[in-house]
């Protein structure tokens, strides 16, 4: 299976996704921003459409356009604190509107399914490079801002009092979410990204451990889900996104059942 170049590309990207999604997803889930991740995942379709139209690598264009939407959400969130869900609906309408208009007008000729459900056949060496660059920058950003990001999620007031520029950190975080979405589009697919943001984190939270251990556990669970999706996709010819989502749900259920059984015994 791994003798094929397309599988090697897909595997490499999958490993990077299994690092990125739980790492950023952890902060999204704990700050109760999971829906922002979901909205931006859908909004990335506009980025893909714009990239295909402008003949730019769709991962790069998805990152650029999703970043604009992510920052826009952050700006609007500061201004309209009481209408957070409405902001997401507006961004969703705008982005999906752009995507559907471009794709349905026939201005671009592409298999949209591959972007929606994920595909192992379409990962090009250029994609691998784009994903690797985005991942390295994101990992470095999280490494350097780790205490600020954790404390901001845990206790926003305390973090402000400690002198952290919370607004700046929030904008950087918005870009990190955009990077996570862009990285995941090819293999996982736009429709499934949100399951990889939230489910491995939800499962890891069941373990009742500290922050670092929970994040590492989420990465392991995410890795299992993506690799299972990849291998199944190879043997069954199905899109990897579907299996990845199903395995994520199964892992969460298994951990919950295990916990319940242990509590009874």
């Amino acid at each position, binding site marked *: 299976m791994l003798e094929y170049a397309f599988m090697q590309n897909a595997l490499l990207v999958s490993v990077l996704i299994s690092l990125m999604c739980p790492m950023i997803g952890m902060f999204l889930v*704990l700050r109760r921003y999971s829906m922002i991740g979901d909205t931006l995942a859908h909004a990335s379709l506009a980025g893909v459409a714009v990239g295909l139209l402008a003949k730019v690598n769709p991962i790069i264009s998805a990152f650029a356009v999703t970043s604009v939407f992510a920052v826009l959400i952050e700006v609007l969130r500061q201004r309209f604190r009481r209408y957070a869900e409405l902001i997401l609906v507006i961004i969703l309408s705008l982005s999906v509107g752009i995507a559907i208009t471009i794709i349905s007008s026939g201005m671009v000729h592409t298999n949209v399914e591959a972007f929606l459900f994920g595909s192992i056949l379409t990962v090009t060496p250029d994609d691998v490079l784009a994903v690797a660059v985005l991942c390295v920058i994101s990992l470095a950003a999280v490494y350097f801002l*780790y*205490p*600020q990001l*954790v*404390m901001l*999620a*845990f*206790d*926003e*007031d*305390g*973090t*402000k*009092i*400690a*002198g*952290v520029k919370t607004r700046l950190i929030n904008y950087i975080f918005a870009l990190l979410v955009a990077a996570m979405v862009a990285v995941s589009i090819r293999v996982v697919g736009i429709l499934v990204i949100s399951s990889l943001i939230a489910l491995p984190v939800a499962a*890891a*939270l069941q373990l*009742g*451990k*500290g*922050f*670092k251990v*929970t994040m590492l556990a989420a990465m392991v669970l995410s890795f299992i889900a993506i690799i299972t999706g990849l291998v199944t996709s190879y043997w069954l010819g199905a899109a990897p996104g579907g299996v990845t989502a199903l395995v994520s749900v199964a892992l969460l259920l298994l951990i919950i059942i295990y916990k319940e059984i242990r509590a009874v015994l």
Partner: protein
Amino acid sequence: MIELKHIEFAYESGSELLRDINMQVNDGEYIAIVGENGSGKSTLVKLLLGLLEPSKGELKNTFSSIGYVPQRFETLNSQFPITVYEVMEYYRRILKVADKQAVRRCLEQMHVYDLRDRLIGTLSGGQCQKVLIARALLGSPQLLIFDEPSTGIDVKSQQELYKFMQELHEQGITIITVEHNLKFAARNADKMYHVMNGHGHFCNPQEYVQEYMQDNVGGAE
């Protein structure tokens, strides 16, 4: 020293909460802020902490480091997967305190070092409060601000807590505490600042408690 002159504050949508606050807190003082629910005590604390900007007036602060002890679960997410040690270590890093031993020292000072591997959400009210004080001590604060420190903790822990607060005061740390526990506030505080109808004034702690007892028979805690 913190000095507030003619401070006014109103939330975006609401009416004016603080109308004319004048207050001076000198170095080394222990001030208890008291008042009814919704009188604006917590808003006043947020102004002192710089979390809110006054709509009008002048706020001068000469304390270079301020520690804050929030109400136990008001701002903290009890489900958050974080150990006591992680809370302390990450806070040390964002405060840019170079001394790595500060975490151990502050936890030991509050007698909670043995809880370092526990998740913060699994601690009792008293234990959590001690950890939050240890966290506030990390930056060697000149001023410590408490928001209703005795909320949600048992009587024994309350007695311990106020003993700690008194000890910190004796070490020269200025203390401002929002209080609903009048008994302890009157015993510890040098002065009380009573907030009512958007205005505030200093009063003698013992006299305030006596007055309160007369107005609300059996109402003082």
